[in-house]
């Protein structure tokens, strides 16, 4: 029965494999109109080509931070009197509540709060020059480039420095970075930058936007993406805890009981 299934699968797979051999680029025959049309041949070559060193960063049980390396080339010479590169990395978003402590009866308690929607858990911006230097203010705000250009829908207490606190607390944990390291340029064409991801980065999809700026205008841009994923034991534990909380709780009880009992048996004589 299994052999029959295998043969059936092979029969199905073979014609597909013949069309696109795995791991190899699709061969476009000149006389095949549908495939030829799919190729973006008519578009002009982009003056910007950017790439990431890896497609994912993995949070394992021994994770203590990582980094993402962005590099590429520009057709326009970079540097003085030339173009500039601006790189923006945006992590997954979440709602965040900022609370302020107030003094009641001589003790400090959390008091008024403001809730911000769609706050990126990680945000990093880097450039050959600071973004405010190479882009006009309105353009920079519209594209959300730079920490002060991030705008959020908010609810709750409106007075007080909640927006500033949100920025400061994220900066302190290295989760929001602005020009922490400049984008370096080699030979006027090749650029690269390494952005650190601290141990507390949230898991999820990350977007990377690379922009080529010249004369206060974005003349080319490219969108890249990578994922920060939990892997191994850390991922399994977090998944089970989220999806099967009852089972997870019972497992924790049993594991702790067995570990405590085993430990006391092992060390009693020692």
């Amino acid at each position, binding site marked *: 029965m299994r052999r029959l299934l295998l043969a059936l699968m092979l029969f199905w797979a073979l014609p597909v494999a013949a069309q696109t051999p795995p791991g190899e680029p699709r061969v476009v025959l000149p006389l095949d109109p549908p495939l030829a049309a799919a190729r973006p041949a008519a578009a002009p070559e982009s003056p910007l080509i950017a790439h990431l060193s890896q497609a994912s960063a993995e949070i394992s049980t021994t994770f203590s931070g990582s980094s993402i390396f962005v590099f590429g080339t520009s057709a326009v010479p970079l540097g003085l009197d030339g173009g500039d590169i601006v790189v923006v990395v945006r992590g997954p978003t979440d709602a965040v509540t900022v*609370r302020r402590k107030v003094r009641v009866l001589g003790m400090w308690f959390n008091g008024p709060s403001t809730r911000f929607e769609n706050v990126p858990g990680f945000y990093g911006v880097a450039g050959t020059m600071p973004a405010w230097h190479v882009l006009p203010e309105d353009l920079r705000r519209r594209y959300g480039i730079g920490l002060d250009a991030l705008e959020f829908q908010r609810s709750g207490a409106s007075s007080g420095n909640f927006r500033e*606190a949100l920025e400061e607390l994220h900066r302190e944990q290295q989760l929001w970075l602005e020009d922490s390291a400049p984008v370096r340029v080699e030979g006027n064409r090749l650029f690269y930058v390494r952005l650190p991801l601290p141990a507390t980065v949230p898991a999820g999809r990350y977007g990377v936007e690379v922009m080529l700026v010249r004369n206060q205008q974005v003349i080319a841009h490219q969108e890249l993406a990578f994922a920060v994923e939990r892997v191994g034991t850390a991922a399994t534990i977090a998944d089970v805890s989220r999806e099967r909380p009852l089972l997870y*709780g019972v497992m*924790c009880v049993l594991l*702790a009981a067995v570990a*405590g009992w085993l430990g006391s048996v092992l060390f009693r004589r020692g």
Partner: protein
Amino acid sequence: MQVYLPIAEMSVNAFLLMGIGFGVGWLSGLFGVGGGFLLTPSLLLLGVPAPVAVASGANQVLGASVSGLIAQWRRGNVDWVMGIVLVVGGLIGSAIGTQFFAWLRTLGLVDAVVAIFYIVVLGSLGSLMVMESVRAILRRRASVPRRLHQHFWMHGLPLKLRFRKSRLFISVIPPALVGVVIGLLSAVMGVGGGFMLVPAMIYLIGMPTSVVIGTSLFQIVCVTAGVTVLASVQMGSVDIVLTLLLLIGGVVGAQFGAALGGRLRGEETRFLLGLLVLAVALLLGWGLVEAPDRLFSLSFDK
């Protein structure tokens, strides 16, 4: 060696956690208590979020108490009937406590309320213990005899039940209420409650000392198991990696502590434990009164 805690979502030195486990285990072996009241505040100081510290702390106390329970059970020192009454009360208390905790979390008051609970409970208990042990030390010198069993209003309550092992014929209401209170504190403070349960059983319920430790361990194991499951279902805040690392240090430390504890007199141990409890209460109280470094804090809604 850095280890990533999957639920707390932070990276912590594994040896530091084992060291904390060892220290707390040593003290708990020395004084014969679970040590949860020292563990949860230490985790909070490390920066572990309060819900994770409380839930994982309760889970660790469970593991640390299991071996003691097995040993007491073998010696026949567990009053199961009394234990079940305490546990039923304890589970009701921890269910209320977990709800209360989840509600506090939405208000952002968890850290402050946990600290206040600690200060009030530890402060009053610590002072009581210090006073009682000083009196006991003085009494030993003066050798004043003390009445063994006292009767008061509590013994007039209905629903009387016979507790064979404890040689008591009393109403189930006082032990059940004691259970509820301990369960509530256990859910809010992440402690087993042994340091409160043992005096309550001796002085309030009037149980003989021989069955007190075994029965309280039975109650602690059941209630911390309940808190662990409830916290997992309600908030998903039990970090098993954190629990196991603390347990490794804890079981080793407890053996060393117990060895030293055997050489101290009962009153002296209680006096030292009282001082320790008071010191923790004062430290936490200072943290609440002292002007904070940061006025603002973030919380993520999951």
